[in-house]
């Protein structure tokens, strides 16, 4: 009961408080939501199916580039471009996933191959003039046009990413109680045993891959619209892949709220470290590295795992 109350209160605050926040905090909150969203998308494949992708930047980049190119070249609204990017990313995810799973890549080998796929896309983007090569693409500043995913001020962007994050959390919650969710967890715990019990491991993992890459791509479009600038290393670089994974691992991989909790902890930590040591690039990522080491060492199941392992009160 207490958990529901706290959840409801937190949700209420997230809905009502932002208009009264100073711009700086609103920006941080948008970052929290975006990273939480990316973490939730990664979590479906990494947390539930136990397939640790190190290359989710591939889908993020496909989403960002598809909607931006469709808009700049053909004038298609990014709202539609977003869906197109998601479908394209899911198709690429299915392709990469089919190859990897079909040939039995597991554990670290899967991580390495996903990293390689993302890096290949980055190299292609850098070397393709038609997509702006290493200079990237700028979405020219215009009048606010909600139809074209352009808003005045930051607040509307906040509500968009809040809705996306709540959507991802809702999907994860549905997933957790579905046949797919149970199958994925069975595969994560012991793939051979799951297959022996009749779970179609390849099909289930591919479904997780498609869903996870589709959602990640939507995040890419949001990023492109919010910052109005993308380039190959921002969108396809390893940093994006690590961001998503980090939120989920720190918050608790394979839990519904883990990635969002992770983002609420990590983003302020990164902001604080940057504020404490000014003018030095890299401080925040250095702290991320340290946090990752500490979390793996002392809270291997993340913050949510730590919370739920404390003496049980009420239902778990």
């Amino acid at each position, binding site marked *: 009961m207490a958990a529901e109350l706290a959840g409801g209160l937190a949700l209420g605050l997230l809905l009502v408080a932002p208009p009264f926040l100073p711009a700086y905090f609103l920006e941080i909150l948008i970052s929290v939501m975006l990273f939480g969203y990316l973490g939730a998308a990664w979590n479906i494949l990494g947390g539930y199916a136990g397939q640790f992708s190190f290359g989710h930047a591939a889908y993020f980049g496909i989403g960002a580039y598809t909607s931006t190119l469709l808009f700049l070249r053909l004038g298609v609204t990014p709202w539609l471009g977003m869906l197109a990017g998601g479908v394209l990313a899911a198709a690429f995810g299915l392709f990469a996933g089919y190859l990897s799973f079909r*040939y039995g890549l597991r*554990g670290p080998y899967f*991580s390495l191959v996903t990293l390689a796929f993302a890096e290949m896309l980055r190299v292609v983007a850098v070397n393709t003039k038609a997509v702006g090569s290493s200079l990237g693409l700028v979405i020219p500043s215009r009048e606010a046009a909600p139809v074209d995913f352009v808003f005045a001020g930051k607040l509307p962007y906040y509500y968009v990413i809040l809705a996306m994050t709540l959507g991802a959390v809702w999907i994860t919650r549905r997933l957790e109680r579905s046949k797919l969710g149970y199958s994925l967890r069975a595969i994560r715990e012991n793939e051979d045993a799951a297959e022996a019990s009749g779970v179609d491991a390849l099909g289930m993992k591919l479904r997780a891959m498609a869903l996870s890459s589709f959602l990640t791509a939507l995040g890419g479009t949001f990023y492109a619209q919010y910052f109005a600038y993308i380039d190959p290393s921002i969108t396809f670089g390893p940093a994006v892949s690590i961001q998503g994974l980090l939120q989920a691992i720190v918050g608790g991989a394979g839990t519904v709220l883990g990635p969002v909790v992770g983002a609420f902890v990590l983003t302020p930590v990164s902001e604080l470290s940057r504020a404490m040591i000014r003018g030095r690039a890299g401080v925040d990522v250095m702290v991320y590295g340290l946090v*990752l080491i500490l979390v793996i060492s002392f809270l291997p199941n993340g913050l949510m795992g730590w919370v739920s392992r404390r003496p049980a009160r009420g239902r778990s």
Partner: protein
Amino acid sequence: MFSLDLLLQAVVSGVLLGGVYGLVASGLSLIFGVLRIINFAHGAVMMLAMYATYWLFALLHVDPYLSIVVTGPAFFLLGMLIQRVVIEPNRFAAEHNQLLLTLGLALFLENLALVLWQGDFRTVRPAYANASFTLGEALVEVPRLVACAGAVVMALALFGFLRLTDVGKAIRALAEEPEGAMLMGIDVGRIRAVAFGIGAGCVAVAGALVTPFFYVAPDVGESFNIMAFVVVVLGGMGNFVGALLGGFIVGLAESLGATALPGSLKQLVVFALFVLVLLFRPAGLFGGGRGR
């Protein structure tokens, strides 16, 4: 455009860089063989070694090759320390968590360097940095030749060490049969630390060997790290000779790719090779490795 001279030059450059890849990968392969960890921080340790070489040269005018006498043992100890403090306490953690542990370590070290020394490219240019001679129509830069020869010598020395000494034999025993090794009274914790130390020592030597013709920057280890992954997968995880041979193959693929393709598309050749080998020969081209 694709003349014979260019081809010859590409082969020479590829082979020379391939030796260094081979040494970096040997260290990675040894760590994998003994600890069963794909060490994402391998390149970051190499980067630190390159900074050590740089500072010894810039502040104390120590020749990069001579600095190996200091950095080699120092990084061996640093490797042992990292293994003891960060990795050993988590040796029973899930496989993917151990992978993330080294990823965290890589992020930490790389950005520590960025915080301490900023992102500027630094170079070490001793008097012989531009020495070269021609071999037929191909130009051979002396520092690259030294790097390749030094790397191969170091790799062979390591091979001899693993074959002939008691510690070396213990390392191989642990890689092959951990439980059997433990039952034979091998101090498993110590051997694991030694293996990680040797891996760090390998990249320290490789780092010192490349600084006379390379740049030093916080992210310089990343490309070597990726190359080492490719090499190790190609040569077979834990297969030592395979790592050295794989180094030459990847070096050649990279430099031939650079000759045939414009811009940075050469990296595509290496990644494509990587994906193909992972998919079709995950145990490595030469067998003996442990795939999947």
